[in-house]
């Protein structure tokens, strides 16, 4: 992975979804994920409705479907795990193309695949329509501990710097003929990690001193407040409310 890719996750735009206050979108995304997880796995139709809901959000936010599909790569390790479950699962077995598969295992694999995919797409849409900095301001508005939000702010701010440093060290290693072939190369990597830690820590000290000299007292000044109107909250609530209704209907029908 190259440095500074967190900016690549945000897709600038000026749509109703982009304009919603970040705290509303955060709550909406988490609420949607909870509703999806609470949906019974036998309800095929309910997951179809959830997919349509997300597609509608993506259409309103003008996020191209190809971009969402490309970013779903993070899911791959768990797809592999889900595919393995029907083979190693217990219980009643069935024959598909001459391969014996576990029925409850198939259900579990479907359950994980469907819910994880919906959750990943919801997070991708959230990240694509919300600037990282705004997301943290929204988290602060939601009364997340201020210290935690500050740590996340510093991390986001300096992540690309540290990743750049790590990349330069990698280029320096490789231009001197280094290839990590087996465990014997571990000391070199460890020394790089140690050097990177010292550089990060010392940069932290410098940043702290610079902030102290500008009057830092342990709290970040609030430069612009992010008020959310009742109308914006209800607009954001549409997605989780519809998903929750779907889940409740699916549950009562099951």
């Amino acid at each position, binding site marked *: 992975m190259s440095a500074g890719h967190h900016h690549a996750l945000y897709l600038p735009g000026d749509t109703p979804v982009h304009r919603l206050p970040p705290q509303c979108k955060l709550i909406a995304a988490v609420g949607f994920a909870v509703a999806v997880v609470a949906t019974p796995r036998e309800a095929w139709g309910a997951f179809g409705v959830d997919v349509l809901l997300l597609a509608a959000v993506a259409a309103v936010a003008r996020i191209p479907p190809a971009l969402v599909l490309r970013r*779903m790569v993070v899911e791959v390790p768990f797809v592999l795990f889900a595919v393995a479950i029907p083979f190693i699962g217990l219980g009643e077995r069935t024959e598909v193309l001459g391969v014996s598969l576990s029925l409850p*295992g198939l259900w579990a694999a479907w359950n994980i695949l469907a819910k994880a995919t919906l959750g990943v797409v919801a997070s991708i849409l959230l990240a694509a329509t919300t600037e990282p900095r705004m997301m943290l301001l929204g988290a602060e508005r939601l009364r997340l501990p201020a210290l935690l939000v500050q740590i*996340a702010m510093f*991390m986001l701010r*300096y992540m690309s710097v540290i990743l750049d440093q*790590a990349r330069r060290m990698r280029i320096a290693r490789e231009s001197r003929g280094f290839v990590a072939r087996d465990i014997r190369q571990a000391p070199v990597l460890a020394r790089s990690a*140690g050097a990177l*830690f010292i550089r*990060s*820590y010392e940069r932290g000290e410098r940043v702290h001193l610079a902030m102290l000299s500008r009057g830092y007292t342990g709290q970040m000044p609030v430069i612009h407040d992010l008020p959310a109107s009742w109308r914006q909250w209800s607009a954001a609530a549409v997605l989780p409310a519809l998903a929750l209704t779907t889940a409740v209907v699916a549950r009562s029908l099951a």
Partner: protein
Amino acid sequence: MHVPDGFFDVPVSAGAGVVAAAGVAVCLRRARRELDDRTAPMAGLVAAFIFAVQMLNFPVAAGTSGHLLGGALAAILVGPATAVLCVAVVLLVQGFFFADGGLTALGVNITLMAIVTSVVGWAVFRLVSRSAPRSRTAVIVGSFLAALVSVPTSALVFTALFWLGGTAPIELSSVAAAMGGVHVLIGLGEALITALTVSSVLAVRPDLVYGARGLAAPLVLRTADGEVAVEEPATLPAPKRGLRPVLLGGGLVALLLAGVVSFYASSAPDGLNKVAADKGFNAYERPHDLENGPLAGYGVSGVEDERLSGGLAGIAGVGITVLVGGAIFFTVRRRRQDKAVA
């Protein structure tokens, strides 16, 4: 190892969320002691460092490669509370900005990868570095063992959670064996890199390693009149609380798990019983000799309420384990002291 949505059912996700929130809240208070007012910038930079280090792939064996979890490493470098915060922030950022790890599984992820790895790693590190004389070797060996233990422990806690509320029907023992086996290998890689990283930081800036406070030699001024040792003003008084919090905390968690969580454990037959029933060889099952014992079948005889009974049996089980373990520990220690005297 990031858990996605849909992997655990709602009660376990919510329970892990409560544990994660409580753990992070405790660490927010304690981190101020480790870094005082520098907490936010320093922890932010360390979190960015952990994020970068997690991208450092190292070859494990036969073409596969692993990456560092970093919990134990962070605990030794910056202290356990700050480490929990840093890894938790890394996980939050990965969940919300990179869609890596489900939003409803954030509690599970923070519990497994931030709290368990850092706390277990730090506990092992303290145990090792306290039982050996203070030296660089002790710190390095301690960090090796800390990382080695922390990774499989995290995998086993994952297995336990999966047994409590996983959504897939997999035999518990096979999951535990597979997860444990794979993660012992990953743990070896993690241990090697952690120990080497700690030793390389120790070589250059020993003052930065939280786990090696007090290792620095006193400052000696060499003047024309000879050498004068300068008394170090007690900069970082190590909290002298010993092992008691670790033991008490561990005991409390064990009691909680045995007494409360066991209510919610699946009452379906476990993997082995299930296979046995399916294959029809449970006809050969012989009643256990202690079937009528006071704690047989994980229930206290004479207590009607099923949950209360199961919980009481669990607590009694933990108590008995602690008593037996303590007795063994004390006899062994006695013998060692006798030998030392003789």
